[in-house]
């Protein structure tokens, strides 16, 4: 566990991933689930970016005064990841709007109950 003190950045990222994971599983309101999904994603990206960081390194842009640079690959991957998580949030939020228009609530248990009733009394 002593090593966890050194890798504090990645430990926090995993804790954030855990918080997002728990929110996604436990909250019944769809908006809370989407927030949990976002927190989970940002946790994963923090984990990825903190891997490439080198103490004392400067940003990966050529400059005269920079002696050595941080690893540029995680920065590129996280940029892709951020755009993916925006697209996912946009789609899930539009699904939430449509569900609310049709069922009147965003609590998934309620929606299942209403959906099941609607089937039976066709």
């Amino acid at each position, binding site marked *: 566990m002593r090593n966890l003190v050194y890798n504090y950045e990645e430990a926090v990222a995993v804790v954030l*991933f855990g918080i997002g994971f728990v929110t*996604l599983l436990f909250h019944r309101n769809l908006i809370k689930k989407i927030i949990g999904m976002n927190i989970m994603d940002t946790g994963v990206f923090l984990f990825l970016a903190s*891997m490439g960081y080198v103490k004392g390194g400067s940003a990966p842009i050529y400059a005269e005064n920079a002696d050595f640079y941080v690893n540029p690959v995680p920065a590129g991957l996280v940029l892709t990841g951020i755009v993916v998580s925006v*697209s*996912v949030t946009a789609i*899930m939020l539009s*699904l939430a709007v449509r*569900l609310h228009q*049709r069922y009147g609530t965003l609590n998934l248990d309620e929606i299942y109950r209403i*959906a099941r009733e609607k089937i039976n009394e066709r």
Partner: protein
Amino acid sequence: MDFFRNFPFISIVFSLFSAVVCSLLPGKAARIWTIAAEAILALLSAGTLLYTVILGESVTYRMGHFGAPWGNEIRFGMLEALTALVFALVLLLSVTGGARYVIRDVPPKKINLYYLLINLLGAALLALVYTNDIFTGYVFLEILTLTSGGILMIREIGRTTLAATRYMILNLLGSGLFLLGIILFYDVTGHLLMPDMHEALLELGKSGEYALPLSVTTGLVCGGLAIKSGLFPFHTWMPDTYGFATPTSSAILSGLVSKGYIFLLIKIMTRVIGLDNPILTVARNILFLFGLLGIVAGSVLAIRQNSVMRMISYSSAAQIGYIYMGIGLGGTAGFAAAIFHLLTHAVTKPLLFLSAASLMEVSGDSPVFHDLQGAAHRNRGAGFLFTVGAMSMIGIPIFAGFTSKLLFSLAAIGHLPFKTFSVLVILAVSTILNTLYFIRTMIRIYTSPEGKKEDRTPFGPQLSCVLSGSVMAAMNVILGLQSQPVLALIERGLALFS
């Protein structure tokens, strides 16, 4: 002949480009463009297969000006080309066969958006089959997730929106775990291209450091992709998703999308982790166990269903269990059986979904068995196609289902006694269960209630549906009777895979 080398790259970029074109075309023109685009994809994949068979080895195609460890590349051999060909053909046939249901279910102004998503889905599938870089695999896996969610939510009845939400949440959870697995791989090996990762993993294996992170990574990657492809404990989204979506979408979703994820898993297992890795054997045994549970649970739940669409969805959960059983068995025989069943199921399931949909159409649009009585007399073509699909699922000798069950039992021979015994028992039990619910359905669609004279529907509108269905049935029979050349191709492809 050397120009054929560019075909995989051209097929991926062409279907991406035709998605952009579809966004500018109106509905009807988008449909014609998509069908033409899928036909071209099938031709290009056939050309790649021809090229790789003549060449006899797998080709790495550099995407851009920079070589292996720095740039990005795709790699194709016999196995990838054969899978791409089957995927492209099934996509073409599902789109042509299901065009009627798209016009019926999708609001008129959004039909071109539907075909746009079909093109993107085709591009993502091909990219997953061909990619040699693990992060490119993640990006196109994300495109596959979003497009399959898109074609699911396009049918504007409440239940599909709810099913789409549930499908997206579980699928995005799976790709979150998969991304975490990839990141740990990158952190430990320092590479993103699969062959370089494999070398780094071999060194690590010898020196024995990072053992715990590697086992966690294998677990995350296998768990993430198992969640996405609907293995046993995570199959609860399947009946609602396939049951309520447009028949074309449920055909494509069940036939192709989950196969894309499994093919990526097989590629990561053989090419990155390496089959002799002790951690992988543990992971494969767990998948084997869940595969067996999936087969039994899927078949038992399918029997209890009252709607034909939900019954077929549960049976596809069972078939996913078959493929994971094949992966769990391992060895070239096990993987060959798994890939053969992957191709068989990709051909059979869309056939079942589309023929069930046309049977439903002639019986008042209700999937309940009570109304489907005598539907096969009303629509002879669809009845015949449903019978072909059902026969193959049960495993009647002429059809491909029998060959894949035979391959599974042959693959199970060389293993520990309890593994062989459990595979053979599960195969027998699941065949009986399949027979139970498929024969029941076939009896029901062919026996019309007491002496009611069934009036046959006109054949005109059915033409495209029956035509594409019969081509799929023909592919099924070819896979069944001519399985030896296909199997040889798979085995040679597997040998060149890593």
